[in-house]
């Protein structure tokens, strides 16, 4: 069987860069024949303290809002998993940052996010890796060769995003593929969906998956095909 999964998706109301409402996200992905979606909204100090701001509990509630709304609207038609595009310390993408680094985290559940959200953004990379390994999460550097991005030491990663479909950036996916091969890392590919035209990429699995842990297991097994739009 073929099981089509989006692994990199942002919803509006979680960052100023994502433009598509949860309603439209569900419609667009349904029209494009996906079986499962992973909502990987941005999580970093800037999102937490500047974009949301306020009490910690409120920030978490607002952050989870996008994921929860997509899950609610999909209503079982597609599976919806939680994930995250994390940036540590000051490493989030911004026009002023010429050394950005963003990490896709898979396997983390919303309950775990609630518990550790504010620890995550204060970790260093070795600390994050250790913390994630203990909990069975996987860390993939997103679009490692995009402009204004620096490469994280592979010791602190499980894999790389070797295909990123965002058309508004120079992603240089071929370099990411070469780096993955060189260090024998895991791979993942995704649409990096912010706007309707971004849809189309993801991973194709050969079996159904039911939750975040199974998604991480599937990525770890390497039994997948990176999906690229024609």
């Amino acid at each position, binding site marked *: 069987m073929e099981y089509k999964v989006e692994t990199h998706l942002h919803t509006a109301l979680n960052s100023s860069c994502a433009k598509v409402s949860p309603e439209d996200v569900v419609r667009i992905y349904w029209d494009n024949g996906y079986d499962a979606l992973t909502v990987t909204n941005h999580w970093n*100090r800037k999102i937490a*303290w500047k974009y949301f701001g306020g009490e910690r509990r409120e920030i978490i509630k607002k952050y989870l809002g996008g994921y929860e709304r997509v899950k609610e609207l999909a209503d079982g038609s597609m599976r919806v998993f939680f994930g995250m595009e994390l940036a*540590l*310390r*000051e*490493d989030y993408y*911004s026009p*002023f*940052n*010429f*050394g950005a680094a963003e990490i896709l985290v898979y396997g983390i559940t919303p309950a775990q996010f609630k518990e550790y959200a504010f620890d995550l*953004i*204060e*970790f*260093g*990379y*070795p*600390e994050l890796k250790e913390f994630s390994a203990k909990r069975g999460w996987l860390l993939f550097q997103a679009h490692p060769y995009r402009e204004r991005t*620096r490469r994280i*030491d592979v010791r*602190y990663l499980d894999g790389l995003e070797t295909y990123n479909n965002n058309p508004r950036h120079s992603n240089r996916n071929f370099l990411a593929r070469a780096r993955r091969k060189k260090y024998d890392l895991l791979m993942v590919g995704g649409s990096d969906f912010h706007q309707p035209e971004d849809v189309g990429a993801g991973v194709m699995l050969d079996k159904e998956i039911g939750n975040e842990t199974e998604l991480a297991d599937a990525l770890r097994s390497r039994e997948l095909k990176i999906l690229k739009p024609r």
Partner: protein
Amino acid sequence: MLVRIFAALEPDHKSRQALYDLALKAGIGRVIPAYDLHLTLSFFGETDDAERLKAAVRSVNGAEIRAWVGGRRTFGNARALIIEDGGAIAEIKRKFCLAAEFDDERKLLPHITVSRKDDFVSEPEQIQIRLCALTLFASENINGKREYTPLSSTFLKPERRFGCMLFDLDGTLTDSAPGIKRSLKYALDKLGIYGYDPEILNKFLGPPLVWSFKTYMGLDDDTAVRGLAEYRRNYNEMGGKYVAEVYPGVEKLLAALKEKGIRLGVATVKPEKTACEVLEHFGLIKYFECVSGGQPDERKADKKSVIEQALKRIGKAAGEDVLMIGDRVYDIEGGISAGVKTLGVGYGFGGYAELREAGADYTAASATDILDLI
């Protein structure tokens, strides 16, 4: 592999990029990448005690720090920018060392190394930077390149928000220099004064005019007052006040501040009526709860009293949550003596050096930068 550990303060993105650009401008060819710039607090060398140090980093609480680049210095082969602040850096170091039970005997001279290869050609500009995180780094040489890996970090909390912001008009909201200079020239013509250096007219932008006439032109009291009358006639009645432009980003900034519920006012030594007309002309008046300006007899219009008057009209007490935003030393000094926080805009008539000397709490390079504060 040799791994050495140290604790450092990290500048935020904008500051990193600004420091990088600054070093380039000061003639350094090979600047350390912007994302590696940091201010070292304590150096531990090789240690097995990383876990304890990580915990110490996490335990530190503090507010983010605004500091100034105060010159340059060479340490061995390292070329560094000296960083000056009011003692907050030393305080963070003290807290950290206490938590880490580390007795650091080295004297702290806050600096940020910008190159290990090239030297400065010229003096660096004195800009303000923001230090926003305390981080424990591991440094190692990988293929001859120094790599820094952040091990753990704590975010210094942004400072508290402002509930009320007062803006100066000329040089802060609008670039009124062309109109003011045109009217000054008219007034000096009328007084029969010629042959002055046109550059001197720049000094008239900001301070009360009678004072400027006396100070820069050597006029006596009566002639200065007459000069003021001529200036006003040209400026108010002959259209000088409308020869101006709103600075880029100002309208967007005001709209964003208003949306956030921050109370806004204008505090200018310009006559109130003129200020209102100018704000109305440029469609900015809708953002402000009050416009506080000079009364027709110029003697009353010093900055402190217009700030106090503005606060009285808004119904707010002076304090830490009020911010006076201006471009000249008079705005900053007025704000300080009125007991409010001050922000100097670098794009106006004064410039950074003047604002710093006056004791501005913050500076901003553009109107949109002011949004970072809230």
